[in-house]
C-alpha cells in the first residue's frame, strides 16, 4: 500500500514546466530531473544570440499566451514521458526582457540510459519551437525592432535548427 502511493507520487512529479521572468538557473533545472533512478541527465539551454542573419541584436522580449503555453509545455512533457523511458522532464521558458547571451529556454531530461534522454531532449525543443505560443521580439542595434514570425519574416522553423 505504501509502495503504491510512493510510486504514484513519483509519477506525478515526473514533469515540471515553468514560465518565468527571472533568469534561468541551469543548475536548478538539472536538480529538478536528477534522480537515483537515472543514469543520464541531458540539459539543453537555448541562449540568445548577438547576431542573427548578419544583424546585431541589442535585446529581446519574449511574450506568451501563458495558460496555453503552460498547457502545451505540459502536454509535450507528458508525450515525451510516454514515448521514451524517462525518469523526469523539466522545461523552463523565460519571458520578458533578455540581453544576449541570457538563456531563453532550458530543457532537462533524465533517463536510466543516455540515448532516451538525448532523443527526448531534442524532440522536446524541436516541438516547443513549433507549437508553444511564445513570441520573440528582436530589438536590433539600429534601433528598430520586430516580432519574429517564422515563415513570414524569418526562415521557417526547421530551416535554422
Amino acid at each position, binding site marked *: 500500500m505504501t509502495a503504491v502511493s510512493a510510486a504514484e507520487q513519483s509519477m506525478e512529479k515526473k514533469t515540471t514546466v515553468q514560465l518565468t521572468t527571472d533568469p534561468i538557473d541551469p543548475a536548478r533545472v538539472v536538480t529538478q530531473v536528477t534522480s537515483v533512478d537515472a543514469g543520464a541527465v541531458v540539459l539543453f539551454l537555448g541562449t540568445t544570440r548577438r547576431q542573427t542573419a548578419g544583424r546585431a541584436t541589442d535585446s529581446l522580449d519574449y511574450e506568451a499566451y501563458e495558460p496555453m503555453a503552460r498547457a502545451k509545455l505540459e502536454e509535450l512533457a507528458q508525450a515525451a514521458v510516454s514515448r521514451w523511458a524517462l525518469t523526469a522532464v523539466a522545461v523552463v521558458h523565460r519571458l520578458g526582457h533578455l540581453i544576449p547571451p541570457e538563456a531563453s529556454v532550458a530543457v532537462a531530461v533524465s533517463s536510466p540510459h543516455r540515448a532516451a534522454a538525448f532523443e527526448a531532449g531534442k524532440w522536446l525543443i524541436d516541438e516547443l519551437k513549433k507549437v508553444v*505560443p511564445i513570441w520573440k521580439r528582436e530589438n536590433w542595434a539600429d534601433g528598430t525592432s520586430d516580432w519574429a514570425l517564422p515563415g513570414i519574416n524569418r526562415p521557417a522553423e526547421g530551416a535554422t535548427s
Partner: protein
Amino acid sequence: MNTTTIDLSVRLFAEARDRAGEDVIAVRLEPPATVGALRRRLAERYPQLEPLLPYAMFAVSHDYVSDEHPLTSEAEIALILPVSGG
C-alpha cells in the same frame, strides 16, 4: 440583425496585438460560427491583420483547432501567429 448572432472575443498577442492595437477584440458572427468564418471576418474588419491571417492558427480552450471548428460566445478564442519561442 437577429437574435441568433454570436458574439465572440478573440485574444491577440505580439505582432497581431500590436497591429490591431488591442489585446482582445469583439467579433459578431452570423451562424454557423466557425473558425473559418472568423478568419474571413477578421480579414474584412482588420486590414492591418489581413496579410497575416493566412498564416494564423486559432486556439479554442488552449488547443489548436481547424477552420471547421464551431465557435460559441463562451469559448476562449486566441489568434496564434507563427510562434518563435525557444
